[in-house]
């Protein structure tokens, strides 16, 4: 219980520090002063980016020490608390409310009962996600790189380049926030940061939707975001999809206010700051920002004047480039390709990199490479795109897994837009969504990557609800009941998914016991941590490296980089070759039963080497582990002699 409390305290400290860093920035720009929600959300978002930039600067300077991060965090958090107190006092004196003065709803606000029901449903989903987030992380991608890389950076005190990790040259701002939490507490705090970002996404969606729907209905948008299964699932694992969605949503909110509300040109700069943050988190932000730019140009071409908007866009692009530029320069420096490994054949002249080349490997997502794959002809793409909303709703397992799904709400509700009146701004939002969706479908059709447009789709859903008052009573009641049932199920999913994590969240079960029960790589990591020295280096078939204290290289990436298996003259030379490459141990992983799959190259070579030269390989530990889905894996930890 104490451990969970400390992790939550770390989250609060990080939030306070982010507010402390962001508030002066927002105040200096003179924007977002109209109401408490807008001020708070923009400040925390801007502060998170400032912290990410600061941590990156510390990383490039080789100063990533826990003590340095701790002192700076506490100073920023105390300043944030002081800022918050000052803001609360000022609001009390001027009697400002949460309702922005200019936001007028296009129709009467929702009934109090509806608002309260939505609030409690969203709170249930958030609480269920919180319970799950309080358990130690076991998500595959998180253990492969979202947490593994920041752990490595913290151990090395610098943003070290890891040639045997495809992900080490990605834009990594979200991972630096996890590094922040790892430095202050540990992996659970890092997971809670992503949970907190889920809440921030809901609040940012309310800020985004307010100019269109009014604040009361915008709260319904926020609740709808939290009730989407994709969001409540993402909030339980330290990935980066919610993080990029938050920054994209804040960028669009600021951009909307700059271009269409003509409030102040300095919103352009804030939009650029958030756009840079989104680009520093994940490549998919490029698609989102490109779609926004195209739709903005189309909109202002009809309305004019265009010059001010284009100048504002240039200013925003400059700020964005300053924020995200170091990450792309770093990738170009190490790999020759600023967006490595995408378009590798075009940008660096190398062979096309089949991303995550071993589909079905225990921790590798079944993504498609961006280049070198057959491209659908335009008519086929159009037909496939038109049918894809049905496909991604009914068969989410084909688009990244059932855990990451949008649910039925959007497919059931959004066709209602055909019967709705036009709403100022909604066409802008939906055009961005459509362009992004087509690009998403053509490039990387994984449902997780739809998160940036989720707030836009939720705005459309709420507008359909608002227009129900035009329906006859019978259909309106039917749709109301159906929607209530959908939202009820959406709220129940998160607590049900977290049902086996209550004991560890409440401290009844220890985190070690939970990991031994649920995370197969944890047992292998426990051996390695007990048997190996900190400067040893493991060549591993298991990619989940976070719980290993020693350095761990992924065998599949090392093999692709060096072709060591083909250059080996005899299996008996395996140990000598790998020792020459700097490795001291092997971690062999084999799937005994279940859907898990590991590439068997290293296991096969090790078995051959053992039969030819048994003195070169010594098996230190061996066991079979059953994970909580029933799959059985066999691990062998082998010393190279």
């Amino acid at each position, binding site marked *: 219980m104490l451990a969970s409390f400390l992790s939550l305290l770390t989250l609060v400290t990080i939030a306070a520090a982010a507010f402390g860093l962001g508030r002066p920035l927002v105040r200096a720009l003179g924007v977002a002063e109209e109401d408490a929600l807008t001020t708070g959300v923009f400040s925390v978002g801007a502060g998170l980016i400032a912290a990410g930039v600061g941590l990156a600067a510390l990383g490039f300077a080789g100063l990533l020490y826990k003590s340095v991060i701790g002192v700076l965090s506490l100073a920023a958090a105390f300043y944030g608390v002081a800022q918050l107190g000052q803001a609360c006092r000022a609001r009390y004196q001027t009697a400002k409310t949460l309702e922005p003065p200019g936001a007028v709803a296009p129709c009467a606000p929702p009934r109090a009962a509806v608002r309260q029901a939505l609030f409690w449903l969203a709170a249930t989903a958030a609480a269920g996600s919180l319970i799950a987030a309080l358990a130690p992380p076991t998500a595959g991608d998180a253990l492969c790189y979202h947490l593994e890389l920041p752990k490595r950076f913290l151990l090395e005190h610098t943003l070290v380049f890891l040639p045997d990790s495809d992900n080490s040259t990605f834009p990594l701002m979200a991972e630096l926030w996890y590094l922040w939490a790892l430095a202050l507490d540990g992996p659970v705090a890092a997971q809670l940061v992503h949970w907190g970002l889920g809440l921030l996404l809901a609040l940012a969606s309310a800020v985004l939707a307010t100019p269109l729907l009014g604040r009361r209905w915008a709260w319904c948008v926020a609740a709808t975001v939290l009730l989407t299964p994709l969001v409540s699932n993402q909030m339980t694992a330290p990935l980066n999809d919610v993080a990029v969605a938050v920054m994209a949503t804040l960028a669009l909110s600021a951009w909307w206010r700059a271009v269409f509300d003509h*409030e102040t040109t300095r919103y352009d700069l804030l939009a650029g700051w958030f756009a840079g943050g989104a680009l520093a988190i994940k490549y998919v932000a490029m698609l989102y920002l490109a779609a926004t730019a195209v739709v903005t140009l189309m909109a202002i071409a009809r309305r004019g004047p265009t010059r*001010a908007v284009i100048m504002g866009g240039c200013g925003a692009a400059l700020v964005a480039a300053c924020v995200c530029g170091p990450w792309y320069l770093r990738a170009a420096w190490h790999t020759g390709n600023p967006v490595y490994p995408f378009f590798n054949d075009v940008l660096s002249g190398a062979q096309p990199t089949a991303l995550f080349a071993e589909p079905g490997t225990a921790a590798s997502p079944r993504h498609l490479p961006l280049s070198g794959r057959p491209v659908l002809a335009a008519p086929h793409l159009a037909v496939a795109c038109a049918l894809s909303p049905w496909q991604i709703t*009914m068969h989410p397992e084909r688009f990244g897994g059932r855990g990451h799904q949008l649910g*039925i709400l959007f497919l059931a509700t959004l066709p209602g837009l055909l019967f709705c*009146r036009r709403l100022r701004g909604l066409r802008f939002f939906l055009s961005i969504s459509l362009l992004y969706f087509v690009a998403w479908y053509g490039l990387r059709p994984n449902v997780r990557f739809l998160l940036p447009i989720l707030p836009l789709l939720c705005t459309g859903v709420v507008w359909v609800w608002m227009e129900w008052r035009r329906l006859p009573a019978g259909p309106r009641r039917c749709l109301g009941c159906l929607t209530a049932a959908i939202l009820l199920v959406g709220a129940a999913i998160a607590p049900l998914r977290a049902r086996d994590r209550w004991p560890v969240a409440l401290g009844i079960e220890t985190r070690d016991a939970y990991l031994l029960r649920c995370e197969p790589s944890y047992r292998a990591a426990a051996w390695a941590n007990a048997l190996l020295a900190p400067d040893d280096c493991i060549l591993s078939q298991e990619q989940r490296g976070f719980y290993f204290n020693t350095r761990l290289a992924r065998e599949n990436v090392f093999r692709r980089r060096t072709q060591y298996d083909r250059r080996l003259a005899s299996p008996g030379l395996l140990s000598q070759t790998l020792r020459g490459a700097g490795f001291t141990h092997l971690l062999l992983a084999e799937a005994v039963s279940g859907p898990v799959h590991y590439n068997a190259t290293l296991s096969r070579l090790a078995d051959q080497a053992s039969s030819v030269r048994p003195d070169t390989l010594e098996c230190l530990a061996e066991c079979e582990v059953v994970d909580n889905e029933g799959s059985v894996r066999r691990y062998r930890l082998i010393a190279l002699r």
Partner: protein
Amino acid sequence: MIAPLKTEPDERSFSTRRRLRAARRVIATMLLTEGADQPSPVARWKAWLLVAWAVLAVAIYAVLMSGVAERFGIW
């Protein structure tokens, strides 16, 4: 005297702009006729079509997600 060309953006403050917009809304409300905010109802058949679509989508989704379709080899 010829008025100078306006090259700078409007310097009016943020709150002034908001107040101006609010004032425009008030005037627009005064000029609108009684009942102008009552939008026309949607035709009954369209409303039931929407209900039918939503019910169908939810039913198929429920069958697929509950595993019933897989168990009986329907889909």
